[in-house]
């Protein structure tokens, strides 16, 4: 766990810190020490409260599919792919994709686990079915 005070401190902002960690294979999310609340996406202050007593924690990677769609594409354009919303165990939600299964087999309520893949040349958090 790394303490981070982006308002008063020097150096990188939360967006860059998140991306640099991802490049090193770590999926970080922020938590307010006072409220204990985790949130995503990374921000300079806790949204709504303005709390700046933020710390970075490594996400457990455990999540549940909250919503899902199959984006339809012709095979020559890369075929169909899944886009979904995942609720992380820590209580925040993100857009992602579930891979390693057919896009239409992704169901709401499905338990999933995070993995860092490369999408369009950049590291990104994707999910696979839990236990797979």
């Amino acid at each position, binding site marked *: 766990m790394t303490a981070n005070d982006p308002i008063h401190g020097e150096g990188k902002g939360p*967006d860059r810190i998140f991306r640099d960690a991802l490049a090193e294979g770590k999926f970080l999310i922020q938590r307010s020490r006072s409220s204990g609340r985790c949130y*995503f*996406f990374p921000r300079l202050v806790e949204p709504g409260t303005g709390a700046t007593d933020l710390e970075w924690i490594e996400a457990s990677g455990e999540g549940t599919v*909250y*919503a*899902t*769609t*199959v*984006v*339809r594409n012709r095979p020559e354009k890369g075929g169909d*792919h899944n*886009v*979904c*919303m995942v609720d992380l165990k820590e209580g925040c*939600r*993100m*857009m*992602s*994709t579930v891979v390693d299964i057919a896009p*239409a087999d992704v169901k*709401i*309520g499905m338990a999933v686990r995070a993995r860092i893949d490369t*999408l*369009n040349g*950049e590291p*990104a958090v994707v999910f696979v079915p839990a236990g797979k």
Partner: protein
Amino acid sequence: MANSLRGKAAVVGVGLANRPEAPGRNAIELLAEASVNALDDAGLTLSDVDGLFTGSAFHYMPTLSAAEYLGIRPSYSDGSMVGGSSFVMHLLNAAMALEAGLCNVALICYGSNQRTIGGRLVSMSEPQPYEAPYRPRYPVSAYALAASRHMYEYGTTREQLAEVAVAARKWAQLNPEAFARDPLTIEDVLNARPISDPFTKYDCCLVTDGGAAVVMVRSDRAKDMKQKPAYLLGAAGAHWHRQISMMPDMTVTAASESGPRAFEMAGLKPSDMDVLELYDAFTINTILFLEDLGFCKKGEGGAFVSGGRIAPGGELPVNTNGGGLSCVHPGMYGLYTVIEAVRQLRGTCGERQIEGAKTALAHGNGGTLSSQVTSILGTEETL
């Protein structure tokens, strides 16, 4: 103070550039055509305009471009950008500016040639960095995700979504200005090309060209003008997110906040409304907004629209012009909800006219279910 704007301003002119396919014409030409038509409808001319309200996917500084093109020097202008709901927001902003004496004749205008220049939605929007890597198809996938959740939580069905598209098409068949008027069945919707599950092509709004404009003045002046005025009784906007992934509950939109505030200003309730014009970018929109604006309970929107209830001859007339699904959708449809509401209140809608309509609700949606703006308009009797 809560009702200090109620009935203080009125829409006295409406105009379209009804060119769903406008090859050889650009966006600002369509805006200007609609503006001239709206002013003519009001019995005014460009030289009367001193308040300008506009938004665009083509012009970075839209009020500057529109004022320059029209050759006007507004004493007040506003280019607030909340996507397709901007122009409904402009109704409220224009009413405030008129009431404050900052301007006397407000022109709200819009034009787009997105169909001709590419056949797809034109947007100046920056990519959303925490969503773009996953390649959602914008904006359809955002709405599809919301639909998937509504289906999961409330048992809303594909057929119920299709009912919305079929009802819109039936209204469009009564509107000679509508772009898509061929017969459409529930089976047609279900069997069409899938775009982003659960949506097929017919769950998605049209991609057209077009222009739209309305003229507003203070109510004391409105009553002596050429057209029967449509008074702004209430309006409110609310927004809770920008990116769809930040929407707190994907089955509840900020219309659940904008609606009650607009009704409060108007001193009216949902059951007082004679006709509804809801921004139906996708079939799920109509269901969500009927729920969030208080026309049925949360989760019951799918059942509510079934059996032709919102179609011609049904209990509650919704999207009587055919909506964004079947009438027109040049990218930001919001102002069209206002124009159809005004026409219904004037009683000039021909075959699709709701007999004796005195109150109308026009609701704009912007971004990815992000911005919600509700307006309530009424005839002189409702003042």
